[in-house]
């Protein structure tokens, strides 16, 4: 019970912090609109009617609204925050608290995530409706599964970023890992659906966790089928479990390597 009070308090604090600067949210909303507008023009030019790899233009724009929502809008500052904490020495304060560092980071990001999900989620729907109208074949009965898939994608992304952030404990300069990760997420589902990739690359991507961050939930939302749901949800659960394990393992190793010189 004490743990619930403790960690929910951290999430509440982060939520309060996230709503301190509405200008920050508004500027990101504008950036999001710009991305979607560019994608709309780009895909509008590519599509001459009909479908490409099973996606209609309407599905494609909704797909991009969702992948951008998961990766761009629901990203947290956990990676940069951890990097800064290690490099500035502020990590000292986080480690002298009676909390588990990884759980602390998770709940600290949760408040920010909730604000982002509500603000950008509603905006994503408005934007997609404005550009291409209602998503064909969408049913509210499928919403619980789609939501679960979204939450799993966001959680997977979060714990992967935590593991990357933890590398700062060992290597002082770790931005290279983040760069590679970002590009993998971008190419394997965020910018284009996996179905657009060569078959051999699709097979590899389906075996890696990166596509389950954006592609799986967005594909489930725009082209829902129970077969696809049963195929991706267990895999998403598996990858989330693996990413949590990886983060905890990385932490247990990384904490031994903290260097505290220089005050």
């Amino acid at each position, binding site marked *: 019970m004490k743990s619930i009070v403790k960690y929910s308090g951290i999430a509440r604090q982060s939520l309060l*912090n996230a709503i301190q*600067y509405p200008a920050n949210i508004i500027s990101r909303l504008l950036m999001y609109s710009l991305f979607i507008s560019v994608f709309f023009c780009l895909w509008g030019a590519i599509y001459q009617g009909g479908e490409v790899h099973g996606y209609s233009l309407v599905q494609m724009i909704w797909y991009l609204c969702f992948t951008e929502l998961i990766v761009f809008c629901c990203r947290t500052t956990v990676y940069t925050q951890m990097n800064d904490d290690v490099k500035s020495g502020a990590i000292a304060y986080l480690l002298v608290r009676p909390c588990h560092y990884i759980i602390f980071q998770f709940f600290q990001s949760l408040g920010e995530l909730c604000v982002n999900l509500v603000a950008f989620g509603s905006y994503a729907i408005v934007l997609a409706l404005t550009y291409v109208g209602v998503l064909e074949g969408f049913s509210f009965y499928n919403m619980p599964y789609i939501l679960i898939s979204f939450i799993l994608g966001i959680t997977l992304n979060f714990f992967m970023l935590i593991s990357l952030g933890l590398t700062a404990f060992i290597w002082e300069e770790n931005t290279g890992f983040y760069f590679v990760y970002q590009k993998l997420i971008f190419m394997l589902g965020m910018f284009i659906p996996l179905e657009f990739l060569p078959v051999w690359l699709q097979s590899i991507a389906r075996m890696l966790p990166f596509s389950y961050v954006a592609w799986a939930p967005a594909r489930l939302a725009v082209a829902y089928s129970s077969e696809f749901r049963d195929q991706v949800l267990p895999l998403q659960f598996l990858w989330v479990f693996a990413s949590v394990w990886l983060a905890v393992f990385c932490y247990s190793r990384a904490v031994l390597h903290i260097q*505290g010189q220089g005050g």
Partner: protein
Amino acid sequence: MSIIASNLHKEYHTRIKDEGLRASLKALVNPVYRKIIAVDDLSFTVEPGEIVAFIGPNGAGKSTTIKMLTGILHPTSGDMRVLNMDPTTRREELALHIGTVFGQRSQLWMHLPPLDSFSLLARIYELDNKSYRMRLAELSELFELQDLLKTPVRKLSLGQRIRCEIAASLLHSPKVIFLDEPTIGLDVIVKQRIRELIALLNREEKTTVFLTSHDAGDVELLAKRALVIDHGRIVIDDAVTSLRKRYLNRKVIEVTLNDTQSPLCLHLPQGAYAETPEAGKLRCIADTRQISVSDLVKYLVETLSFNDLTVSDPPMEDIIAAIFRGEEYQK
């Protein structure tokens, strides 16, 4: 004992390379590491309710030691107990009973008022609402925080923020508090206030205080005992009053000169030297084992024309500086 450190040792391996592109390329293929011993066979104990100053020059190993004692860093070897707990294996449990203030860092949320941070810390430290409210009222009164509690931290002055930082560290009534340069960057008045508060806290609540500071005033006015560390080793473990006595074979003679004179042309007798000469002022340090104060004053009277002359004991600052310079410590 509040704190026991036995043969603590901490070493790092840091990458080194020579200057230039060639050396950088070579370091890519064949990196070279140097071993740095931050803390070397450190042993000491601290009694409950004691205020101990842990002092030493930059890079001596002070912060590393504090970070090991609070469980942030793991020692390479050695043993330690804080409140009878091993900080390495029981960090989270120990954290409930200790407080920390790192003067150059902040534990408060910059964009939110201190009240929000206090409320979060109360939850983190598992305080019930009633205890939290009572403690907050006590600390608000003690640290005069009433007008600051609802202002975002980023809008507070450094002195106000440090008062909030210390109050935040005391919210859970820790038995031991580690203060790492708590008065750094503060003006004289605020420093004095912070010192008074720490002394009051120690008196009223019997909190053990483990303090590192480069400020001699903190050491002199707060601590009863000083541990002096250099190159990761304890070089002096003595009462602060003793430190002063050991250096009482020195006297400081300060002279206010007639402004036309330059003190730089002085050739002081053996056993005396001039320090920080500035326009119109001369500060002589006399080693009374080599020259008596009266002889030096006589020499100054004969050599200089001045308006004022005072003789005093060396300030704590000079004593610490002398220790850091490695000058002889008289047991």
